[in-house]
Structures are given as C-alpha cells and as structure tokens.
C-alpha cells in the first residue's frame, strides 16, 4: 500500500511516527499551516513557522524516506487576532516557494466577520498564484458552517476542482459532492470520523474526489489512520486499486494542480548524517 497523507501536522510528531509511517507505506504528505495550540502573538511567529515547514520539517521527513510538502495560510482561528492578521501581506512571498502545494488551512472557526474576510482574501491569493485551496470546516455548527463555506468559495470564482473541503462527515459530504469540490475526511481515534464510517461513505459516494487524511497533530490522533482506512476498505470489499486511488492517486491529482509536487523517490529510508543548515536528526556521535 502506498500512501500520501494529504493533511498531517508533522511538526508536532516524533521521529518514531516518521518511522512507523514509512513502514506502513507513507511516502509523501502535505503539512498544512495551522495554529500552534498556544496562540501566536506576532507575525514573526508565523514566518518562523512557515520557514520551518519549507525547511527543517521537509529535511526531517526526507531523512525517513518521506516527501514533505506544505500549504501556507493564516488559519481561521487566528484570523480573529489583530496581532496576527498582518501576516496576510507576507503570504505571497511563501506561496511561490518550492514544495508549497496549496493555500491552507483557510475557512471558518467561529463564523466571524474577521474569519470571512481572511478566507475570501486568501481564496483570491489562490487564484492569483494558481494554487489549490485546503478549506477547514468548523467543529461547531458544522453543517451551517459548511454551507456558508461553499457560498464563499462560489463567490470567489475559483474552480471547485481546485478546492478541498476538509473534516467532512455523513452530514456535510453531500453538499460538497454536489458543489464539485474535493471531499476531505480526517480519520481520528475518537472524534470527527473513523475508518469504518469512512468505508461506508466511500461505498455510498464512490472514490472520485475523495481524500482521506489522519490530520494528526499534538492532540490525540494517529498518523497511521490513513493506513487503517486502507485496510478497512480492503476488508469492506474495495480493491487494491480503489485503495490506491483514495490513498495515493487522488492526493497526487489534487495537489498536482499546483505544479509543485516533488515525488521522485528518496534514496534513504533511515536517517543519514546529512544536515539541514548544519543540523542533523541524529543524536549522539555522527559516523
């Protein structure tokens, strides 16, 4: 099983996770820019984070045989904080960088005016810089939030096939399917969506425009949920080719629209003495 996790926050994961992911078949991933748990207080905090996504984290993943890409955005939660919103002016510098494959995560958290303004602005950036968009849907009031999300997407004029609406469930998937956007599902141990419900949704809606991710971060989450969904699909009667469509070909097709995927295989699958700006992931003596 080859796996492309289209949404996972590796910055908050350990090297054990990278090793387990590689062993399970993960060869590529996308890390969307999001909040940090601890609120940011300045634009500098964003730019250091963005620099880490395109620099150190990409290097760290490569040391475990995994191609790391990222998306860049002001996230919905922090769009409400005036200390953070100036980052919108800096985003264009990052959107054309190597390995940046979408604008994201954008969308709503609490359905505020500030969130909507940042969301609409960043949809325009996606149009201008010819990138797809990763849209987060709110945890609270999800159905209304998803409806409004799709309206804003439509108003922006961006092509629906360049948009993935994420964190969907049984209640919201139909709206997104109808709108022509890609459908994203975050498979969690205890919340959002689990792999068995996911298989039922795939049975009902088919595999086209479907993206399955682990959305693993610093909360309770499991970076192998993509793999487990693949297993559940096979147990549920899907073919290996169906699994490959959902776990590899679909994310490649969606993010490939950026023209910025880097999928040539990496030579090493275990860490070497290589360094990023002089730092390696090894601890102890270098050979």
């Amino acid at each position, binding site marked *: 099983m080859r796996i492309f996790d289209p949404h996972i926050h590796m910055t908050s994961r350990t090297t054990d996770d990278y090793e387990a992911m590689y062993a399970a078949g993960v060869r590529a991933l996308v890390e969307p820019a999001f909040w940090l748990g601890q609120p940011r207080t300045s634009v500098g905090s964003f*730019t250091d984070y963005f*620099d880490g996504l*395109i*620099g150190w984290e990409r290097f760290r993943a490569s040391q475990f045989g995994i191609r790391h890409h990222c998306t860049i955005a002001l996230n919905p939660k922090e769009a409400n904080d005036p200390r953070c919103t100036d980052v919108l002016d*800096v985003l*264009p*510098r*990052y*959107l*054309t*960088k*190597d390995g940046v494959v979408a604008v994201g995560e954008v969308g709503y958290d609490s359905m505020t005016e500030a969130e909507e303004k940042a969301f609409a602005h960043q949809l325009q950036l996606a149009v201008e*810089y010819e990138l797809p968009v990763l849209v987060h849907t709110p945890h609270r009031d999800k159905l209304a939030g998803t409806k409004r999300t799709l309206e804003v997407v439509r108003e922006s004029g961006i092509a629906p096939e360049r948009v993935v609406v994420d964190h969907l469930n049984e209640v919201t998937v139909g709206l997104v399917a109808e709108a022509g956007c890609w459908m994203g599902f975050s498979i969690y141990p205890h919340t959002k969506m689990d792999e068995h419900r996911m298989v039922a949704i795939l049975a009902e809606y088919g595999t086209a425009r479907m993206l399955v991710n682990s959305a693993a971060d610093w909360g309770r989450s499991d970076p192998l949920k993509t793999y487990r969904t693949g297993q559940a699909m096979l147990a549920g009667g899907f073919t290996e080719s169906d699994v490959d469509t959902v776990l590899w070909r679909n994310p490649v097709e969606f993010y490939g629209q950026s*023209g*910025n995927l880097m999928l040539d295989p990496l030579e090493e699958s275990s860490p070497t003495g290589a*360094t*990023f*700006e*002089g*730092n390696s992931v090894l601890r102890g003596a270098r050979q």
Partner: protein
Amino acid sequence: MSTLRFGYGTNGFANHRLDDALAIIADLGYTGVALTLDHNHLDPFAGDVAEQTRRVRARLEQLGLGVVVETGARFLLDPWRKHQPTLLSDEAGPRIDFLRRAARIAADLGAECVSFWSGVKPAEVDDTTAWRRLLDGVAAVLEDTPARFALEPEPGHFVQHLAEALRLRDELGGPEQLGITLDVGHCVAVEPFDAATCVRQAGDLLFNVQLDDMRTGVHEHLEFGEGELDLTATLAALAEVGYRGLAAIELPRHSHAAPDVARRGLRALRAADWLADAERTVRADPARIRTLFPAVGRKAGRSALDAHGLVHGTVDDKARVRLLAALKPEDLAAEVPDLYRYGDGAERRAVLRGLHLLPPEAAGTGVRLVEDALRANDIGLVAAALGPFAAEHLDAHTWRHGVLKCLFVGVPVAAVAGLGDRVDDELVRMVGDYAAERRAAGRDVPSDIDVILQEAGAQ
C-alpha cells in the same frame, strides 16, 4: 509567458518517418515544425508530391503545428556532392527549380515561409561574379510567386553574416516577400554581435528563426547550455521586436537521440522564456520580485554548474541574480533585506551571489547579510557569501575567518573571490596553525591550504 511559438526542425528527426516525427514534436508540446524537404521527408521530386503535401498539411492541422519549409537537404539534388548545385554554381538551374518547387509546396502546406541559403562560393568564381549570380538567382526564385522567402546567413557560405544578407535584399530593391532566417547559434559562431543584437538588427525582416547553441568560431550545432549563447537574452530580444514567426530548434546532427534531445530543448526554451518574461515584469514593477524570486527553481531549473554548485553556483542562482540585476540600484537596495529574510536556503544563496550589484551606499546592508551567512552551517551559503562583494567590502578579520571556515566545512577555496589580492600574513598564520593542529591530531590536512599558501607566495 511571451507569445513566442517554439518549433523543432525535422532534419533533427532524420531517422524517423515524417508522420512519427510530427507526432512526437507535437506530443512534446511544440507548436510548430521546420520541415526540411528531403528524399525521405516529403520528397519534392516524388511523382505524387501533390497528394503527399495534402496529406502532410492535414496532419499538421490535426496536430496544431505551424510550419516553415527548409531547403538545406544535403544530397537531394546531387547524390555525390553535398548541397550542390547552388545559386552560385555555373549551372544554377536545378537549385532555382528546387526553390520554386519548394515555394509551391509551401503554398500547398500553408507554410509561413521558405528558408534558403546562398551556398559556398566555388573556388574558381570571383566575388563579383558570385554576387551577380546570387542576385540573379534570388530574383528568379522570387518571380511570379506569392511565397515568402527567407535568406539564411550560413557560416562558410558566400552570405555568412546578417549584414551581407540585408545588403543583398537592399540591392534587389527590398522586395516585401524577401526576409531573413536567423540561426542564433550562427550568431555566436561568426557574427560580430551577439544573437540578441542580430535579432534587433533584423527586426521586422525576421521571417524565420532557428534556435541552437554554439561556441565562438565553431560551426557546430549544440544543445542549449553547451555553448555560449545567452538564450534568455535572445528570447527577450525576439519578444521585444514583436517577432511572430516560428522559432524552431535546429539540431541536424542529433537525430540519433531525437526524442530526448527535443524534450530537453523545449524544457530549456520554456525556462529561458519564463526568465525573460520575469525580467521584463520586474523591470516594470519591482515589487513583483518578491513572488517571482522564490518561484525560480520550479520554473528555470536547479542543476549545479560545477561538481556541487559551490564554486559557480546553480542554474537557479544564476537566474535569480538576473532578476536582481533587472532592478534599479535603489530598488535593489530596498528589496534585498526582505528577499534574504524570507528566502529559503536557495534564495538566500542567490541574494549573496548578487550583492555586488548593490549601489555603494547600500554596502552596509550587504555586509550584514554576508556576516549572517558566515555564521550559518549551510555550506552553500558560506560559499556564496565569499564572492566579489565580500572581497571588496568585508573587513580583514571577518574575511579571514570566512576563508578559514571554508577549510573547516569543505567549501573549495576556489569559491573565494579575490583570494590572491586579500591573502595576508595573518591568514597565512591562521591556516598554518590550523594545519599544525590537524597534523598533531593525526588527521588529514586539506589540500586547499596549499592553494592559500601559494597565493600568498605569489604576492
């Protein structure tokens, strides 16, 4: 991107059937073809040439390819003598007949023009006679045909420079249907000016363009990057003069690997075209460098220009420095700090390699960036930091420590600009101590230490 249309010459697909060659050229993404009429590619002397021409025209239309007709086949008229007879021969009739046939085929194909050359002057013919024959021959070819003809200056031929081709046209009274074919590689090989200047000199009279690389004085068609052609500046000049014709790659000696060569060629053209366009954009709106600078690697390539790209940098370094050079000095001074601050490793490297472009009053900014880079452990940054700007502006202490750091981290001292001028007794002492320390520990002494000592001895 510019509106230039890129094609490929079928004489570079001599081992392919014409139909297959056209399909490959179109599949690769070219939008035109320079079709050399030859014994195996639309033979103008075949009994069913009219029928074949209709078929080829349908094929070109189906594939969406524009076409120009080329007449440089080697043994089409005389199986024993290459390119013979020519318009300069005692019996030029067969050549004139061939060119008039080519004009009819061009009309039936919907081709944009027919390209031709003068031929080599026979040893026994004097210049005056040769010029007369050429004038008469071209006049005969142009008579009673609506076809556009394009005269190509060809190294070693009687007309080998653009200036002679333009003079011939003048002496014929400047017929509207007669223009120029310019092979930009030939410009490198034999013209007194570079290809971009030749493009501007030909201007509106440019009917047809052939693209390839070449070295000064050597008429050998090379792939882009193997010679001395400034492809980006050449494409920029074509866009600037509003050239609307085909620009087709001319690699007649690469048929043995045609599909791969053609694929590489289009990649190079698209990269150069993107860069030429980006330079224009930045000149018109300096702030656009903020988003074009990061995109360079993806659009223009990333390969190293030497073993590890430490001495001469990389393709993207070079392209980014061109974008910096497109800024006015005051705009450059304003943009450089943030290009560095927000740059990834590759972008920072290029900023460092472009610091010599800064105006003198902004030297302080440049010094700060060099100092930052010399604190890093990324050897690409260390190597790029010690270029000509550091040689001129860095204080002696910082510069010496930069050189010593090169020895430590494995940057070849060949990457250090102005080593011979700046090496001093203190640096000699420092590297001497370093060598002694290595020897005492039983470790290798970097051979670059000798290079530094030799430079010191040569002073």
